[in-house]
């Protein structure tokens, strides 16, 4: 059993992972894990891997026993088997558990707005016309908020249909929530949570944490006493929406 586990564990893992990658690509969900610029490369290499897997299975039919395998100590064997078992269990998880986006657990752990996404956002916004401002995402707004808290700057810049998921403001979870998105440079591992604070007392009753909403409103001084955010969106309307097919911003 040892020798066949040793020989086939890699082929089985690479087959399962490549199959999952191809299915994710076909169903448009590869963007849940990696930046769109890698999709073509990933699909091509996964296809090559599967061709090699089929070739490996085919060649097994004529495999003569070879005495090349180095003798392995009992400890190494146990280690190898448990590594294969852990890897196998995880890949079965990849196969059967529905794909999902990162949740607020990670957003809180990584601290919303810990980093600036877009250093030129303020200058760009100063020159943007109304149509461009209406298209601003969480990425632009959160970057602008990092660079200025001058309310005058936001006077003619309303928030229009801003989409994101709901995450509580840790300093005033009753009254303020962040409308948040993850920004990805390479893959979900490096996702940075960004968010725009929204003042809406009792928001929990209508919109559960992690659910997706669309907010329209205007910036104003934050009425909350405990929240650290100087400015918040005072919403005119908050609507529950479906999670977008590309939940991350790139």
């Amino acid at each position, binding site marked *: 059993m040892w020798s066949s586990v040793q020989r*086939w*564990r*890699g*082929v089985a*893992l*690479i*087959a*399962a992972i*490549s*199959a999952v990658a*191809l*299915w*994710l690509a076909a*169903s448009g969900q590869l963007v*849940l*894990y*990696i930046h769109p610029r890698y999709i073509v490369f990933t699909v*091509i*290499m*996964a296809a*090559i*891997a599967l061709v*090699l897997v089929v*070739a*490996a*299975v*085919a*060649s097994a*039919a004529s495999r003569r026993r070879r005495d090349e395998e*180095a003798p*392995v100590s009992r400890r190494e064997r146990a280690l190898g088997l448990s590594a*294969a078992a*852990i*890897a196998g269990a*995880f*890949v079965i*998880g*990849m196969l*059967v*558990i*529905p*794909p*999902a986006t990162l*949740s*607020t657990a*990670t957003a809180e*752990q*990584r*601290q919303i707005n*810990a980093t*600036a*996404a877009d*250093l030129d956002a303020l200058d760009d916004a100063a020159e943007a016309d109304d149509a461009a401002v209406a298209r601003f995402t969480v990425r632009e707004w959160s970057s602008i908020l990092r660079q200025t808290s001058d309310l005058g700057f936001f006077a003619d810049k309303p928030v229009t249909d801003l989409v994101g998921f709901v995450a509580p403001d840790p300093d005033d979870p009753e009254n303020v929530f962040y409308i948040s998105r993850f920004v990805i*440079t*390479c*893959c*979900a*591992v*490096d996702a*940075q949570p960004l968010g725009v604070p929204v003042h809406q007392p009792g928001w929990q009753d209508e919109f559960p944490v992690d659910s997706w909403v669309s907010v329209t409103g205007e910036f104003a001084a934050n009425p909350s006493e405990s929240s650290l955010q100087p400015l918040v969106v005072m919403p005119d309307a908050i609507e529950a929406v479906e999670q977008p097919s590309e939940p991350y911003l790139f």
Partner: protein
Amino acid sequence: MTVRLETPVRREDHRASRRWGARHLIAAGLGVLGIVALIALRATTAESGPAGLPDVAQDLLTLSTSVIIESLPFIVLGIALSILVQVWIPEAWLLRILPRNQWGRRAVISLFGMFLPVCECGNVPLARGLVRRGFTIPESMVFLVAAPILNPVTILTTHAAFGFDDGILVARLLGGFLIANVLGWLFSLHPEPQSLLTGRFAEECRIDDGHRHGTRAEQTVDLFVRESSILMPALVIGALVAGGIQVAVPRDVLVALGSDPLFSVLAMMALAFVISVCSNVDAFFILPFASTFLPGSIVAFLVFGPIIDIKMLALMRTTYSTRTLLRVTLVVGLLSAVLGLVVNYVV
């Protein structure tokens, strides 16, 4: 006489290859069926599979999966290039271009990445291939350390992210080159280079020496099976640990250290170790931190990260012994820290 000797052999060959045909088609068909079954399983569980995991467990799965999916194409490319180097390229080609002089050899090897733009996880199978092809073990380390930094994709993305600001790009390239060559030189002083390898890989190299069996196609498939059997479990476990640490260690602990000349360097190296992101894109990842961290710490991140991180250690453990990896980590860590401090204080 010669004819008589050849005929039976040929006939046997012919029979063998005919038998080969039918059985192998069936096996290949089963292989295809297996893959279709995997995709079908994934498609049916997409809606109805076990859902409702706790957030943290679900995020661990998502993070680890993303490391695996992101590394998969590079690993496959690395295995493919390794097969190319070992089976399809005549040995003379590779060795002919190298200077005789030890330092010259290592300097040229550290530039191999310019022609093999694979991210660091793909370099592991390639380095294994080079060792099997007669490169010394210190030389394989030079390649492993330099190639992810001195490669066209990394240079382009680093330039796109930082331009020539603060000497970050120049420090990264020069630093990578110097660290690789110093590391190669240090290990070339080792009296018994074979003992730097894991027992299993050393044994494989010894058995491989000289003779190869089977046609090139058979060798190709055989190498694919062997390399994936060693690298894939390491990749999955490395990804799992990397994901686990991401879930467990709050990011702000690291970011809080950002503006101190010494601690910012160490914090960035710790971040690079934990995050295990590919060298091709790490510049974009670190760009948002550039406003809070000193340039030297960014350089330390960009030099240390491609070489040493959780995922890479798991992959390199397939080839080098634990003691070797500890020493490599120590040397690369010290040199990266010095480089970062020099940039912080001098530039």
